[in-house]
């Protein structure tokens, strides 16, 4: 009798415990708190040692600099003497600094490359999603510029965009167009950088779209076909909604990456381009901070940049959560 009365609780408890561990984080928290008993002491010990490096790294190289930024942005600081508190001076300077606004504008304008790249890569992915010879080779070729170093690619394109002997103008010449001197003319420097960015980023987004297309369940498409939906409607109402998470991811990472564009500008137009036409915000921060030693001012701008990126990302997540499409 006594054996029978003690065994049921243990048999009940075990599966419950296993279920809790395999479950999501939410049930886990509900059913079991992190153990503080003697049994889990070695686990806590080793666990803390294992997670210590990245946590320490975060504290030293992310949190501490961020906190210091929040202070230094309000100081007058040249890097040689210690920062002197200056209130909102840096932010006032920024508001009245035409180069700040110009570089911010340049950065935003060059993001036109994101939708262009997405449209082309979606078309490419749809094309690559067919069964045909050479698919693997195409994937490699389209992604090749993406793995190449920005420095080498920028050097290549600086030469390719040369007004007199560059590849781009040679090709335009073949169809009878007299190409501009891309990196020297104010109205052409941004399109030139956008062209290069699209070329470099195409492979990455194509790969992601291709993976998403391949994960669209065949039975959904077949069901739509049986319901009489044509190719366009199948794409519009079945495939496209299932691609939206990838589009979202690409837009978010594209904007975050685009806001940090630096190497291309620094190499291809070392002085910020014709009439400051290609200087991006990170380039301007770099120039003010490391060339002009206006560290307080540069920190203030970098803080604004960080806040803008955060804000734009947050807005995108908010909008995405409102019209997200889920398939059970």
């Amino acid at each position: 009798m006594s054996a029978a009365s003690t065994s049921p609780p243990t048999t009940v408890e075990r599966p419950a415990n296993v279920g809790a561990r395999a479950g999501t984080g939410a049930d886990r928290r509900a059913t079991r708190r992190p153990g503080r008993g003697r049994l889990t002491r070695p686990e806590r010990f080793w666990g803390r040692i294992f997670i210590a490096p990245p946590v320490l790294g975060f504290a030293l190289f992310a949190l501490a600099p961020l906190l210091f930024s929040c202070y230094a942005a309000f100081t007058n600081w040249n890097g040689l003497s210690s920062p002197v508190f200056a209130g909102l001076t840096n932010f006032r300077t920024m508001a009245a600094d035409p180069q700040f606004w110009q570089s911010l504008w340049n950065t935003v304008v060059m993001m036109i490359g994101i939708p262009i790249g997405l449209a082309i890569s979606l078309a490419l992915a749809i094309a690559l999603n067919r069964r045909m010879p050479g698919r693997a080779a195409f994937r490699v070729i389209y992604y090749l510029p993406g793995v190449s170093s920005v420095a080498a690619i920028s050097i290549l394109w600086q030469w390719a965009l040369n007004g007199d002997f560059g590849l781009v103008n040679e090709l335009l010449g073949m169809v009878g167009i007299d190409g501009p001197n891309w990196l020297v003319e104010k109205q052409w420097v941004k399109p030139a950088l956008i062209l290069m960015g699209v070329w470099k980023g195409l492979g990455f987004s194509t790969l992601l779209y291709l993976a998403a297309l391949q994960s669209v369940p065949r039975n959904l498409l077949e069901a739509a076909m049986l319901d009489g939906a044509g190719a366009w409607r199948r794409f519009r109402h079945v495939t496209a909604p299932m691609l939206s998470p990838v589009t979202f991811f690409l837009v978010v990472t594209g904007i975050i990456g685009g806001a940090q564009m630096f190497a291309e500008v620094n190499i291809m137009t070392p002085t910020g381009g014709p009439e400051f036409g290609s200087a991006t915000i990170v380039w301007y921060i770099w120039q003010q901070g490391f060339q002009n030693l206006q560290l307080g001012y540069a920190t203030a701008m970098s803080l604004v940049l960080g806040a803008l990126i955060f804000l734009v990302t947050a807005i995108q997540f908010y909008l995405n959560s409102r019209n997200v499409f889920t398939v059970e």
Partner: protein
Amino acid sequence: MATTSAVPTAPLQTSGVAPDAVRGRRKRSDRRFQSPADVVVFIVLCLGAFTMLLPLVWMLSTSLKTQENVFALPPQWIPRPAEWSNYLRIWEAGPLLRGIANSAIVSLTVITVGTVTSCFAAYAFSKMRIPGKNALFLALLGGIMIPFPALMIPTFMLFSSIGWVDTLLPLIVPGLFGNPMMVFFLRQYLMSVPDSLIEAAVIDGANHPQIFWRIVLPLIRPAIAAQVILWFMGTWNDYLGPIIYLNSENVHTLQLVIANFNATYAVETDYPLIMAASIVALIPVLAVFLVFQRQIIESIALTGTKA
């Protein structure tokens, strides 16, 4: 924000990725065209591939020209004579070898040590009971979201105050603490490994370092490989970090060396030399990419399904 959506779905994602690995293999039916439309699409894709490759081919072509040939009209696609000596001149024209060595030192140290610390952390974050670990993990993810330019000035001053500017240390040391991105991906991967496996090892008397080396590490090896390759390419190609910290030529990484080539020799219009140096800078990463292209492309696809 990304975490809350990504974390609970971890087991689903790995199951969704498995068929991808199968799909990566070429099926027999892929070798044949199914319809005339496919032939048209194939031709369009070929033209696209041609456009993508053209600048790189042109770079190679320029690197084999003589200085006068560069300005020949109409341009020569296959330079005659091919000036292979450009690839000998580059080694004398700048500290290219030093740059390769410096880039190798940075990437190899960071990745070897950083991968070990990242793996241990990913294991602890996914499988070990530690008070407050979820909050710490969220903090790490928050750290990923802060863009580097927003932190570069204070970080620079931090390293400057301990005299590390103009050495390779600011590029190496932060990486030794592990890569939060890698921790994130490996943790996701480990979420699909059953806990019972680790519990069985605990019951058998294994301690946690042993469990890690004998059980966890073999399981996540493919995921580690993919992350290591991506991280290598990121470190090797980095430009903003080196340009901030490194002044003297003897510490310049390869990317800075070729950028300086560009600045110096463009004045003399020695484009063949610049292109040859840039190609040398591209080769290591392109070689890694071509050798591991399947793994890289699959882990890129994996990144997308995480979204």
